[in-house]
């Protein structure tokens, strides 16, 4: 199903011009596939015949493409009442093929990370159908700022992990690496758009990327968090947090959800699966009125622990790709990189 970094097995690199890429997208849209490219607010659908450019030196979009595989609001069942009978109707998850074009490595990895929890004790059909029909075309990243830290979590601006195909901008177009089985199938189908790639050009482009400095060691962080649940450090971390869910919602891998029922009218309605976040005050509010995480410090501790300890413990993946969106967008500039780096320095002393 999903891609894996298959560098040793990748065929020689290919090449595609910008113009041919444009044409390929038009053909894909003719074949009833949806193509998404990074734009102002997030990844948005391309319209037929629309010209586009992908500038990989821009900062990551404000929000990720998580919405395409894990929608912000999704109906999971519909009901109709007729006197005393209730009819339950299962919606068919949207299996339309989507091609995500121009995902930076910090975005491309997100589906493979989330898919671990969505296939853990229960196979989430809604997620799987969408993820299985999504092709990720990653792109080399030429952006770095003070909030990025992909290198600290095992990624890099040239990492192909999570991508099915990977573009490297070169003169006139892109070098193309075929990373996964699915990527290869795609390539075989549309190989007429591609020509042979120039390995030297590709290596040159790759050499020019600026990598963010590594500021922490995930293993050290994981160990420290496991041993320091009651540490006073946590009382300093969440004090300024306002408890909005901006960080969780723009994050490519945060995946908590809430189930609510809504009605159209007295006899018809639906059950919705909506994004939720551990930073909300009512996230752990019990029906009795008791709230185990009743202040923001405890809630922020949960966020860091989940991402850097609990998820890696269970699934061997860090629940973070180092994209920095949470910190860039935080209303009060809480910087996750700084917090985890602080923890790292505690761990080392």
């Amino acid at each position: 199903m999903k891609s894996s970094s298959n560098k040793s097995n990748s065929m020689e690199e290919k090449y595609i011009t910008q113009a041919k890429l444009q044409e390929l997208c038009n053909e894909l849209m003719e074949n009833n596939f949806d193509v998404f490219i990074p734009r102002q607010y997030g990844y948005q659908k391309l319209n037929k015949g629309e010209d586009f450019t992908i500038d990989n030196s821009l900062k990551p979009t404000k929000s990720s493409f998580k919405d395409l595989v894990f929608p912000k609001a999704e109906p999971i069942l519909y009901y109709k009442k007729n006197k005393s009978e209730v009819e339950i109707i299962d919606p068919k998850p949207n299996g339309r093929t989507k091609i995500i074009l121009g995902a930076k490595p910090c975005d491309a990895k997100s589906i493979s990370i989330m898919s671990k929890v969505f296939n853990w004790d229960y196979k989430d059909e809604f997620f799987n159908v969408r993820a299985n029909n999504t092709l990720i075309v990653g792109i080399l990243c030429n952006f770095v700022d003070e909030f990025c830290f992909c290198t600290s979590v095992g990624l890099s601006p040239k990492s192909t992990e999570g991508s099915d195909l990977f573009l490297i901008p070169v003169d006139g177009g892109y070098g193309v690496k075929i990373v996964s089985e699915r990527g290869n199938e795609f390539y075989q189908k549309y190989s007429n758009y591609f020509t042979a790639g120039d390995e030297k050009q590709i290596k040159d482009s790759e050499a020019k990327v600026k990598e963010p400095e590594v500021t922490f060691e995930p293993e050290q962080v994981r160990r420290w968090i496991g041993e320091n649940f009651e540490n006073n450090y946590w009382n300093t971390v969440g004090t300024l947090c306002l408890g909005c869910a901006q960080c969780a919602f723009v994050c490519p891998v945060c995946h908590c959800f809430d189930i609510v029922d809504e009605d159209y009218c007295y006899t018809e309605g639906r059950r919705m699966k909506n994004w939720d976040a551990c930073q909300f005050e009512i996230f752990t509010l019990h029906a009795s009125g008791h709230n185990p995480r009743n202040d923001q410090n405890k809630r922020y501790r949960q966020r860091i622990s989940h991402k850097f300890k609990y998820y890696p413990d269970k699934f061997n993946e860090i629940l973070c790709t180092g994209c920095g969106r949470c910190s860039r967008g935080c209303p009060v500039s809480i910087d996750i990189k700084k917090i985890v780096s602080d923890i790292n320095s505690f761990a080392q002393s």
Partner: protein
Amino acid sequence: MNKDNFEPKIVAFVCNWCTYTGADLAGTSRMKYKPNVRMIKLPCTGRIDPLFILKAFERGADGVLVSGCHPGDCHYNAGNFHARRRWIMFRKLLDFLGIDDSRIHFSWVSASEGKKFVDVVNGFTDKVKARGPFTRFKKLNEEFVINE
């Protein structure tokens, strides 16, 4: 939808002591008025939370009528004064968003004004009928379709 056949659904939030009694009077006097209105009785217009009005539109109302006691006659002394202030603001907000006077109407109808109630209802129903169904709000509901 055939515009001529369109019968608007109007929800009326009315206060118990004045307008509701006024409507009762219209009924007992056998005055006829358009049947499109569905009445919701509240103790006082001061109880009307603008959320009710929003919910009425959400659930398919084409028009909303809000009516209560004349200023100075409120059974609870000042409920309608508070309500009046709220309406001034809510009305402007709705107008800014695209829900104008042809969809929402306010009136003072006292317990003895059965005829006025009939006039208000008939007049507003005609206005909404001429304006047409409030399809735009209804379309918000159609984002998810069963068996997509």
